[in-house]
C-alpha cells in the first residue's frame, strides 16, 4: 500500500504547489499588467459617485461589503449572492486555523457555527444554480463555465461538510501535519528529489476520510488554478473599475491621459 500512499502524497503536494504558483503568478500578472498598467484615458465615474476620495472609498466599501449596486436591481440575487459570499468568506477564515498557531480565539469561536454556515453556503449555492437555468434571461447568457465554477464550489462545500461526519472524518492531526510540512520551505525540494515527506503518514490503506480530503483539496486547487483566467477575477477587478474608483471631480482636478501627450 505504500505505493498508493506515495502516489497520493506526490499528487497532493504537487497540486498544492502548482496550484499556489499558478494562482499567485496568474493573479499578479493579471492585476499588475492587465488592470493596473492599462491606462484609463478619460474620467468616467458614475452617479452616485462622490466628489471626494474618502467618499469614493466609502462607496466602494459599500459595494464590496454590502453589494450596494447589486441591491438596486435584483433582490433575490442580491440576498443569495451576498449570503454566498459572506459564508464562503467565513469558511475561508475558519480554515486559517490550519496555518496560524496558536489559533486565534476569533477563529475558534467561528468553529461553533461552522456547520451551520457551511450548510447555508451550500443552500445558497444550490439556489444560485437553480436561478441560472430557471431565470430565463440569466439562462440566456449563462455559459458552461458559469456552471463549472458553481459546481466546483459546491464540490468543495460538500466534501467539507462530509469531513465533519463519520466515517469521513480525516485524522485532524495528520492534516495539520500535512499542512505544516507543506509550509516547510524545504518541502518542494524534497519533492524534486523524489523523497516525498510522508504526508498522510498512516502507513496503511487510505481511509474514506483521506479520499474525501483529497477531493476537497483537489477542488480547492482546481478553483485556484482556474481563478486568474476566469470571471473570478472580478474579486480583484472591481477595485480597478473606472466607473467606481474615479473621483467625480474632473473639472477641478485634471486627469491626465497617459497616451495623449499633445
Amino acid at each position, binding site marked *: 500500500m505504500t505505493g498508493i500512499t506515495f502516489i497520493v502524497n506526490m499528487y497532493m503536494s504537487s497540486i498544492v504547489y502548482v496550484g499556489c504558483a499558478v494562482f499567485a503568478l496568474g493573479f499578479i500578472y*493579471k492585476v499588475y499588467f*492587465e*488592470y493596473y498598467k*492599462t*491606462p*484609463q*484615458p*478619460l*474620467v*468616467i*465615474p*458614475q*452617479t*452616485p*459617485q*462622490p*466628489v471626494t476620495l474618502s*467618499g469614493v472609498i466609502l462607496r466602494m466599501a459599500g*459595494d464590496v461589503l454590502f*453589494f450596494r*449596486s*447589486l441591491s*438596486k*436591481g*435584483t433582490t433575490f*440575487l442580491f440576498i443569495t*449572492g451576498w449570503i454566498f459570499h459572506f459564508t464562503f468568506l467565513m469558511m475561508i477564515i475558519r480554515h486559517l486555523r490550519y496555518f496560524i498557531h496558536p489559533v486565534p480565539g476569533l477563529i475558534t469561536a467561528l468553529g461553533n457555527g461552522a456547520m451551520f454556515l457551511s450548510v447555508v453556503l451550500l443552500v445558497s449555492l444550490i439556489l444560485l444554480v437553480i*436561478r441560472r437555468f430557471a*431565470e*430565463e*434571461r*440569466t439562462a*440566456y*447568457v*449563462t*455559459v*458552461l*463555465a*458559469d456552471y463549472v465554477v458553481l459546481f466546483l464550489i459546491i464540490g468543495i462545500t460538500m466534501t467539507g461538510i462530509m469531513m465533519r461526519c463519520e466515517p469521513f472524518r480525516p485524522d485532524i492531526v495528520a492534516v495539520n501535519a500535512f499542512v505544516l510540512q507543506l509550509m516547510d520551505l524545504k518541502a518542494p525540494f524534497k519533492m524534486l528529489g523524489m523523497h516525498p515527506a510522508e504526508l498522510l503518514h498512516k502507513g496503511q490503506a487510505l481511509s474514506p476520510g483521506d479520499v474525501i480530503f483529497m477531493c476537497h483539496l483537489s477542488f480547492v486547487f482546481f478553483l485556484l488554478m482556474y481563478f486568474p*483566467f476566469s*470571471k473570478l*477575477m*472580478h474579486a480583484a*477587478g*472591481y477595485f*480597478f*473599475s*473606472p*466607473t*467606481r474608483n474615479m473621483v*467625480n471631480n*474632473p*473639472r*477641478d482636478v*485634471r*486627469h*491626465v*491621459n497617459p*497616451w*495623449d501627450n499633445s
Partner: protein
Amino acid sequence: MANDKTTDSAQGNTNDANARVQELIKFVKIKEKPVELTGHYEVPCIKPDSFIDVKPQLLSSVEQLQRLGYPTAGLIPDWKEVFLKKMDEILKKYRSVKLFLDICVRCGACTDKCHYFIGTADPRNMPVARAELMRKVYRRYFTWQGKLFGSKFVNGSDLSEELLAVWYTYFYQCSECRRCAVFCPYGIDTAEITMAAREILNSVGLVQKYMHEIIDKAQTIGNNLGMQQNAIVNALEFVQDELQETTEIPDIQVPIDVEGADVLFVTPSADFFASPHIESLYGYAKVFHQAGISWTMSTHASEGGNFGLFVHNYGHMKKINKRIWEAARDLKVKRVIGGECGHMWRVLSSYSNTMFGPFDWLDSRYPRPQHICEFTLDLLNRGALKIDKTANDEFVVTMHDSCQVARGLEMGGTEFGQFEIPRGVIRGVCNRFEDMPENTIRERTFCCGAGQGLLGDDMIATRVKGAIPRMQAYSYAKREKGVNFVALICAICKAQLSKMFPTYGIPMEEVGGIHQLVGRAIVLGAKEGI
C-alpha cells in the same frame, strides 16, 4: 442597399466578404407600432432575434470617409487582421474596455435594465448579452485558452461576416446611456464596450451614416448641422429680431463673435432654429440680458454637441472639442458656459480638462466650464432675476433626467447636483412640479431612446421601441399627477421626444427645455444687476 456606389465598387473588386456583409446588413425600412400607454412598463419574455433586422444605414460618401480616416469602399479585404489589430489597440488603451470584458460574471442583474430590451424583447439587447458579443471575440483571440483550444472551448466566436453583421446590428441598438452600469455589481459600463465595438467596425469599413456624417460636419464645418458661418449669423440674427419683437426690448441681444465678452456660450446647433429647442435659446438670451452679463456665441465653436464621444476614437472628440477651447481663447472670454445638451455637457465637463487642460486664463472664480443650469440657479438664488412663476401656471412640469447628465458628472460640485440643480431651476420658475416614478428618474433614468447616434430617421424602429419605458413613465405621471410638460436639458432628448410624443398620441407641445420655462417666467425690464 444604402448606396449603389458601394455595391458596384465592391463587386468590381470581387471582394466577396464585402458583398456578403453588404447583403447581411442591408438597410430595410421597418415600421414599428407604438404600444398602448398603460403607465407601466413590463419586462418582456425573451424573443430571440426579434430585432435583428433593424440596422442603420452605412456611410458611403468617399470624401467623408476619407476625412474621417476610415476605409472608403465598404469592408476591406483583409478585415480580420485589421479588426484584431484595432481591438488589441483599444484593449491596450482603455482599461475600461479591457476590465469590463474580463470581469463580468454573467450574473444577470443588468438583463432587464436596458430600455431597448424592454422595448424589443430581443435578448441580444440585454446589456450583458450585448457585451458578450465582444467578449466572445475577446475570449477566442485575446486569452491563451482561446488561442490554444479554439472558440468551442472558451465559448468564443470566430471572426466571420455574420459576426460583423450581428455586431453592426446590436451595437447600434445601444444608446450608451449607462443605465445598466448603475445596477451592475462591478459598474460594468456597456457604453464603453459599444464605443469600442463601433470604432472596430469603423476601422474595417462599416461606418454608420447618421452619426459619422455629423462627426465629419462638426470637424470640418464646425457644427452638426453643417451650417456655414453666414448661415449661423443669419439664424442668430433672426432669433435676435424675434426676441426684440416679442419682448419689445430693443437692446436684448444674441451676440456673435464679440471679443472680450464675459461669457462664451456654447450650445447644440439645433437650438438655433429647431423646435422646441429654439425656445430655450430665447430663455438663455433673456437670462443673460437680465443678469446684465455680456455674453457671446461663436461661429468657430458653433456647436456644443460632440458626437465624437460616441465612438472610442479619441481623435474625433478632441478635434471637435478643440473649437470651443480655441474660441474661448480667441474671444478672450472670462467664463465658458454650456447650454442644454447631454453629451456636450459630459465632454465639456469631464473630458475637456483632460484633452486640453484647464481654461486657465478664465476668471479665477469660474475656472471651469459651467452648465447653464448652474448659472441660472445661482442667479435665481441671489435674487438677480425677477420671476413671475404664474406665467407657467398652465403647466404641471416633470423632468426627464437626460442620461449623459444624470449618470455623468457632478454639477455644482456635489454628487447629486445634476438632479437638484435643474430641478431647482424648474421650481424657481414654476409653481407646480411633479416627478415621474422613482425607478425612471435620477440615476435610474431611462434614456429617451435615441441617444448617442441613434437619432437618424433610419433608426425609427429602434427609437419607437426604446422610448417605451420613458413614455410609460410619463403617461403615468400625466394620469396620476396631471403632468402636462416634460422639461429637458438635452437636444437629442428634445428631438426624440417631440417626435415620439405624437407617435404615442401625446401632444408635441408637452416637450420643451428648462430654459423655455425660464424664458416664459422671467420678467424683463429695469435691470437689477448682480
